[in-house]
C-alpha cells in the first residue's frame, strides 16, 4: 500500500482563551502552543499501521510555513518515509477548497492507494478536504472513518464511518481512495528517540504553487469558495451565574446550591 497523509499544524485552543487580533480576521497566536491537528494525528497512525501490516510507503504532506516541519518530522519519526511541504505566499487565507486544490496538485504526481486526511480541522472545522480532495483526484472518498480494513485483493477496503449516536456505517470502497479519519480510530503512538533522530535528517521537499502548476488565482484567498470577513465573539444565551471566590468559597457555594435544589 502506498499511502499519503495530509497533516495540518493548528493552535491548541481547546483549553486556552481565544482573542481576536487587531485585523479582526485572525486570533492572537503568540501565547498559544501549536501541534498536529487532532484527527490528522490519528490519520498518521492509521497509515503507519497499514504500512506495518502490508508494507508500502507513507508520504507526509503539509501546507504551510516552515513551522509545519515540526509536525511533518514527528510523522516521519513515527514511520513516515517521505515528506512534502507546500509553501507559497499565494496559499495564504485559503479555505478547505483552496487547500484541497493544492493538495490534489501535489498528490496527482504520486502513486497512491490511499490518501489519508483528518476528517476536520480543529481551528476552522470546515471538514471539506476529504470529499473535495477525492473529487479533485477523481477517486472515491469516505469521511468520518473510524475503521479501515484492506480487503484481500488489495483493491478494495471495508470502511466504517461514524454516524450520529455512534452508529457505524460500513461500506466497501474501491482503491485508490481518500479517507477522512475521525479521532479514536486507533491509539496514536509516541515517536521513539531513534525515530526522531532519523527524521531530523530526512529531506522535506518544498513545492510552490508554480511547482505544482497552479496559478495564484486558483489557490489561497483568491481560489477559495468563501473568505472570512471578520470574527466576532459568539452570541451566547443567558450566561451562567458565575460563583465568585477562592476554591474553598466557590465549592461551598456550589455545594449549597446543589443541596437547595435537592440534588445532594
Amino acid at each position, binding site marked *: 500500500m502506498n499511502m499519503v497523509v495530509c497533516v495540518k499544524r493548528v493552535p491548541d485552543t481547546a483549553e486556552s482563551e481565544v482573542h481576536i487580533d487587531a485585523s479582526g480576521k485572525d486570533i492572537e497566536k503568540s501565547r498559544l502552543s501549536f501541534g498536529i491537528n487532532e484527527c490528522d494525528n490519528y490519520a498518521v497512525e492509521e497509515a503507519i499501521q497499514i504500512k506495518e501490516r502490508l508494507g508500502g510507503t507513507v508520504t507526509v504532506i503539509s501546507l504551510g510555513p516552515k513551522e509545519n516541519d515540526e509536525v511533518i518530522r514527528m510523522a516521519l519519526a513515527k514511520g513516515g518515509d517521505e515528506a512534502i511541504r507546500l509553501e507559497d505566499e499565494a496559499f495564504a487565507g485559503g479555505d478547505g477548497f483552496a487547500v484541497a486544490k493544492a493538495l490534489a496538485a501535489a498528490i496527482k504526481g504520486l502513486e497512491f492507494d490511499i490518501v489519508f486526511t483528518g476528517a476536520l480541522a480543529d481551528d476552522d472545522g470546515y471538514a471539506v478536504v476529504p470529499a473535495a480532495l477525492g473529487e479533485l483526484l477523481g477517486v472515491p472518498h469516505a469521511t468520518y472513518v473510524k475503521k479501515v480494513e484492506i480487503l484481500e485483493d488489495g483493491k478494495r477496503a471495508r470502511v466504517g464511518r461514524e454516524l450520529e449516536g455512534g452508529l457505524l456505517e460500513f461500506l466497501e470502497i*474501491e482503491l485508490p481512495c481518500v479517507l477522512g479519519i475521525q479521532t479514536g480510530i486507533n491509539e496514536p503512538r509516541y515517536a521513539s528517540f531513534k525515530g526522531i533522530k532519523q527524521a531530523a535528517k530526512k529531506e522535506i521537499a518544498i513545492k510552490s504553487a508554480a511547482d505544482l502548476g497552479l496559478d495564484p488565482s486558483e489557490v489561497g484567498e483568491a481560489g477559495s*469558495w468563501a473568505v472570512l470577513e471578520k470574527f466576532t465573539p459568539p452570541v451566547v444565551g443567558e450566561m451562567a451565574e458565575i460563583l465568585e471566590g477562592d476554591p474553598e468559597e466557590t465549592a461551598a457555594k456550589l455545594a449549597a446550591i446543589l443541596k437547595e435544589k435537592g440534588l445532594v
Partner: protein
Amino acid sequence: MKDIFVLIEHRRGEMRDVSIEMLCGAAGLGGTVVAVLLGKDVDAFAEKAAGYADKVLYVNDPMFENYNSEAYQKALSALIKEHNPGLVLIGNTAQGVDLAPALAVELGAPLVTDITALEMDGDKPKPTRQFYGGKLDGHMVMKDADLYILTVREATFQAGDPSKSGEIVKVENPVKEEITYRKFLEYVEPEVGEVDITQSTLLVGVGRGIREDKNLPIVEELAKVLGADLAASRAVVDAGWLPADRQVGISGKTVKPKLYLAVGISGAFQHVTGMKGSEVIVAINKDPDAPIFGIADYGIVDDLFKVVPKLTEKIKELKGL
C-alpha cells in the same frame, strides 16, 4: 430569487430533524422551496416534507435505500443541472459532510459548511459559522456564483408547524449507470456498556481539562460522593480513559439528567448537543470564555484540580460522610 433545494435526510426509516428545520429556514429566504427526497418507498417522508415545501422532488429507487455518496452525488448533480436552483441546503451531518464538498467541486459551486446563521444579500448567502470549537463566530463572504451550497448545523433554524401543501413530483431516477466505487454493507450499533448514562439522574461529565487518565480519580471521587455516574467528552473517550458508552454528544449519547456537572469541558457544539436538555447544568472550567458557560446555569471559573477536591469535601460534609 431562484429556487432553493433542501436535501431531505433520512436513515433507517427516520427523517432527520434538520431536514424540516432547513425547509422552515429556507421559507424565509424568498425563493420557491423545493424538498429533494432520494429514497426507497419513503412516501411518508415526501408527504411530511410537502407540509413545509412548495414542491417535493421525490426519486423512489432501491439505489437510495441507504446513503451512498456516489449514488447521491450523481442524482443530486443531475437534478440540480436540470432544475437550476440558486441555493442548495444540506444538513451538516455525517451524511452531508461526506456528500457536499464533492458535489460542490463537481458543480463548481461555492460551499460553506456547518453554518449557524444565514442572511441573504440578494441571491447571495452571507453565512455565519463557528471557529475554534465554538469560541468565535466567523462571518463569511462567498465568491459570486449562480449556485451556492451550504451545509447547515442542526438547530440553526427552528422547525415550525406545517403550513404548506407542496406538490409531490415523482421523478425518474436520473442515475442510469451502476454504482461501482462505493457499496453500502451494513450498520453496526455501538457497543452497550455496563452503565446506561441516558438513565442516570446525576452525571459528572469529564473533559479534556482532566489532562491525564491518572487524574481521573478526583472526578471519580466527586461522582461517588454525589451518587452520580461518570460521563465523558469525546476527547476522553478517544484517549481510552473512559469507555465509549460514556460519551455524550452528537456521536455519543443524548442525556437529560437532573444534574450535569461538566468538569474541564469547553462545551463545543458536538458535546453540548448531547446534554443541553439536562435540568441543571454546572460547569467548572478555567477559561472564562468557554462556550459551556453559555448554556450552564452555574459556573466556576477556576482550576478544576483545585475546585473539584474542595467540592467533594463540601458534599461529604453536607451528607455527613
